[in-house]
């Protein structure tokens, strides 16, 4: 703003705005994205931010130049001699802070920032913190998955007792599934956790989720890729989910993450008590041989009534693999079957899942299903559509042999398929 330029005021300076019936002093704040261009935002002594529109008859004076505040870095003690745990930051709400400039939440940048969110974790383990990257989970890419898998594999092969990955919740389950398939058999647990409330709030779920992840690594004998999040609106327990079976089922609740078609692997109480609800892979000394290959030309389509056959045909023709989230037991409009048959004949792999999420695809029950089967569509059974999408990318990344890919998709590699679904 020209007035600020003319008086050489910068954010952090104490200014006085007077005239037009106003007399307000305070520290100049960054203007918000949604502020009117003529409005100055100042923090008054009382701590309140107020927005004042500057008119030509008003005066703005600098009372004092701002001091540059440096945040003293508090590197926590390392907990030498205790079990070793790696904490990998990727960004997301759990390692976020509020930025006044944009008025929004930003990912923490350094490993120290990460650890500072829960300094008491160093009381129970020797922490290696590393910010692998710092992005919102909606911006996560296949390349990021591969990088993360590589770093994780290195830590696991270094003899660490477990790896905690801090991740934004939006695409957490995709990353979890990708790591599951890429890492294969692992000797120690890899726990992906996050927060639904940013760690700049006293009520954040970040602390309990992160601390519980460390506790679970230390006290459980499970060694899988797992997702750990709140189990209810209470801070009293968390649920540990199998990476390939978990889904974000709510936009904002702490207990947004739910295991679909199975129970969570375990629940962990605030006293450290663990209740196991499913069988799991146990800890070992196996060496990790990550298989990072991923085919990016895979489409993930939600079928809907009225879907244009032309658009559908265009998409499936351009990809090596397609996962469809169909209706009910796994259906699409029968008009779409012909283009699917054509694509499959030319080498595309098509997997059918259900947008019902709960329950299994079954292509035997209705004629549409049987037509899909005969066209060569693979049943995704009770795999989550997102898991099927990640698995198909991975399968196509391992081999060009379509028969082999079909075999991979039908095998239960990382607990993504379950053959029994129980009443509760």
């Amino acid at each position, binding site marked *: 703003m020209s007035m600020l330029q003319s008086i050489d005021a910068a954010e952090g300076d104490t200014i006085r705005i007077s005239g037009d*019936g*106003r*007399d*307000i002093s305070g520290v100049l704040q960054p203007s*918000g994205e*949604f*502020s*009117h261009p003529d*409005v100055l*935002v100042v*923090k*008054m*002594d*009382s*701590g*309140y*931010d*107020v*927005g*004042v*529109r500057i008119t030509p008859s008003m005066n703005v004076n600098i009372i004092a130049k701002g001091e540059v*505040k440096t*945040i*003293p870095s*508090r590197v926590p003690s390392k907990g030498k001699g205790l079990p070793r745990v790696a904490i990998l930051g990727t960004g997301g709400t759990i390692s976020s802070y*509020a*930025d*006044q400039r944009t*008025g*929004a*939440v930003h990912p923490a940048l350094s490993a120290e920032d990460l650890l*500072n969110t829960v300094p008491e974790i160093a009381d129970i383990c020797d922490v290696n913190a590393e910010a692998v990257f710092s992005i919102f989970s909606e911006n996560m890419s296949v390349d990021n998955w591969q990088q993360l898998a590589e770093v994780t594999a290195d830590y696991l092969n270094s003899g660490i007792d477990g790896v905690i990955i801090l991740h934004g919740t939006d695409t957490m389950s995709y990353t979890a599934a990708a790591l599951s398939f890429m890492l294969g058999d692992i000797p120690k647990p890899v726990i992906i956790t996050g927060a639904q*409330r940013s*760690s*700049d*709030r*006293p*009520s*954040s779920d970040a*602390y*309990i989720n992160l601390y519980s992840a460390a506790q679970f690594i230390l006290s459980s004998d499970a060694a899988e890729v797992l997702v750990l999040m709140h189990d*209810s*609106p*209470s*801070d*009293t327990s968390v649920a540990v989910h199998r990476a390939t079976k978990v889904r974000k089922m709510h*936009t*904002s*609740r*702490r207990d947004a993450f739910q295991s679909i078609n199975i129970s969570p692997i375990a629940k962990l109480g605030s006293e450290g008590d663990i209740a196991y609800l499913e069988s799991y892979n146990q800890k070992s000394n196996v060496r990790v041989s990550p298989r990072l290959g991923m085919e990016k030309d895979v489409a993930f389509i939600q079928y809907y009534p009225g879907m244009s056959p032309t658009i559908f045909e265009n998409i499936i023709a351009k990809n090596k693999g397609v996962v469809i989230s169909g209706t009910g037991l796994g259906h699409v409009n029968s008009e779409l079957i012909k283009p699917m048959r054509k694509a499959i004949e030319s080498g595309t792999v098509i997997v059918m899942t259900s947008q019902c999420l709960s329950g299994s695809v079954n292509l035997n029950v209705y004629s549409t299903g049987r037509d899909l089967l005969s066209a060569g569509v693979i049943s995704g059974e009770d795999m989550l559509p997102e898991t099927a999408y990640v698995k198909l990318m991975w399968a196509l990344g391992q081999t060009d042999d379509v028969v082999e890919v079909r075999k991979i998709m039908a095998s239960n590699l990382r607990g993504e398929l379950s053959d029994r679904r129980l009443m509760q």
Partner: protein
Amino acid sequence: MSHEVTVGLEIHQQLNTRKLFCNCPSCLVEEEGATFQRRLRPIQSEEGKIDRAALDQAERKMQFRYQSPSSASCLVEADEEPPHDASSEAIDVALTVAALLGAKPLDEIYFMRKLVIDGSNTTGFQRTAMIALDGFLEVNGRRISIDTLCLEEDAARKVETDGSEITYRLDRLGIPLIEIATAPDMHSPEEVKEVAQRIGSIMRATRKVKRGIGTIREDVNISIPGGARVEIKGVQELRMLPTYVEKEMERQQSLLAIRDILSGRGIEPVAIEVTDLTYLFEGCKSKVITSALKSGGKVMVSRLPGFTGVLRSEDGKLRLGAEMAQYARTKGVRGIFHSDELPAYGIEKQYVDAIRDALKLGPQDAFALCAASAAKAREALKTAVERANGALVGVPEETRDPLPDGSSVYSRPLPGADRMHPETDVLPISVPTDRMENILSNLPELPEIRIERIANDYGIHIQQSTQLVREGWDDVFEEIATDNELAALAARTLTSTLSELEREIDISQLNENILKAAFAGVSSGTFAKEAVPDVLRKMAEGMNIDEAVSELGLSAMSADEAREIVARVIREREDFVREKGKAAIGPLMGPVMAELRGRLDGKAANELLREELQKLLS
């Protein structure tokens, strides 16, 4: 010129709109709803510091249980969903009050997070925004400045404290509150009440504020010359304001007197020493001592050299001991004893002497004693002695809780500057000129105009309408007063009957609905207007209107029944009637009304009396 006392007010008024950041109704409910448990954690400030008070609270490892009734809360109150846009209705009410107070609204409103981690906000902060600055009002020709007007969310309601777990209900959380802070411009107890009443009636003029106990709360900042700022937080009874101010003035004066006495004696700050004298109390009959010892506690004592006579003076005016006990109680003990009040409470002279010997105390030396677990007793005495040392300086700044009798009790030190962060989930709200113009052109009727209109429209005295508006009965009055006769009755009831009743009984149960029900009984002829005070008395005790009517035997009296009673009264006084003739009507009204006991109104009774008298005389 130095004033006898300086007082500033902070008034919090609940609005009668939907909640501030969601669409839940703003009401308190009986429903408990689903419960969940949380912890709160102090967070770093921008400078990397953790707030001391916040940490203090976190160290107590409090756990919070929340009841989330679905009739008055949703995921937003449970902190399971981000806040919605701030209620524009609530913002308009705040802007309207700002306009009525001549305060200048900000051009952009920013909601802040005020850190509060006592669990009363599920988020760990209270959302609050500055709406307007620099208003004023005039009371008795004196100008009182209004420094700030804020809009904020009310906190959750504390239901229960059980050890380290506090239970809150989320119904109150998120109800919009207007917070008005005056400058420290008031200088007499009565003036404080008048300013509060005036601000209250201005807010009520919007017709968008809640009524009744607990919907308006006042924080009163009081200091006397040489004293210190003491905040009495959360006064709900407006009429008690002068008493709180007076009692606080007396308290500060007595603390200054204590300081002068101690300084005259040349007393130095006491070194804090706590001595275990449990061994002296074998065989002591004091209940406090025996029960503490039975549960493994100790009797701990601290010396207070030179403090005799100020802990509790003979005339009871100096009471440093009581102040020390209030501080000690914050450490979880039930209280302390001090030497000015002993021997008493079962601690006989022999024990007092033994303590004095053991601690080698001179005649002017006092002591404080605490029987509890060793650790708690030690902490309590340490705090108590620190408070005693504070008396050498004068009046400590502190926050105090109001008690029903108009006194107050220590609750905590004055909070430091509030920790405020921007609430990034709520967009800044622009106050464009047309929004303000619209508010200015639709301002509600101001109290003084209302007072005149009510007096004129209903034919009541201006003093009555003034009192109705000042005390906030004007709305109820206008609803009840459907004709001039009822208006006169309603005005009399609301301005004088209620305060007469209040001198005898607790009338806090008498809300608007009860008053309306009582007057409905009059206008439908169920009972006579003379019975209103009795009916209200019964209703204040918790009866409903039907129970009150039947308890008082008021249920409708037939004309024949009434005529018979009147005739009997006349017969019993036949000689008198014959002697006085028609002039007997006046003297007979008293006995007649007493017999009718409010089951017939005076006018009808007078008519009957006239007729029956006529019969006898003719």
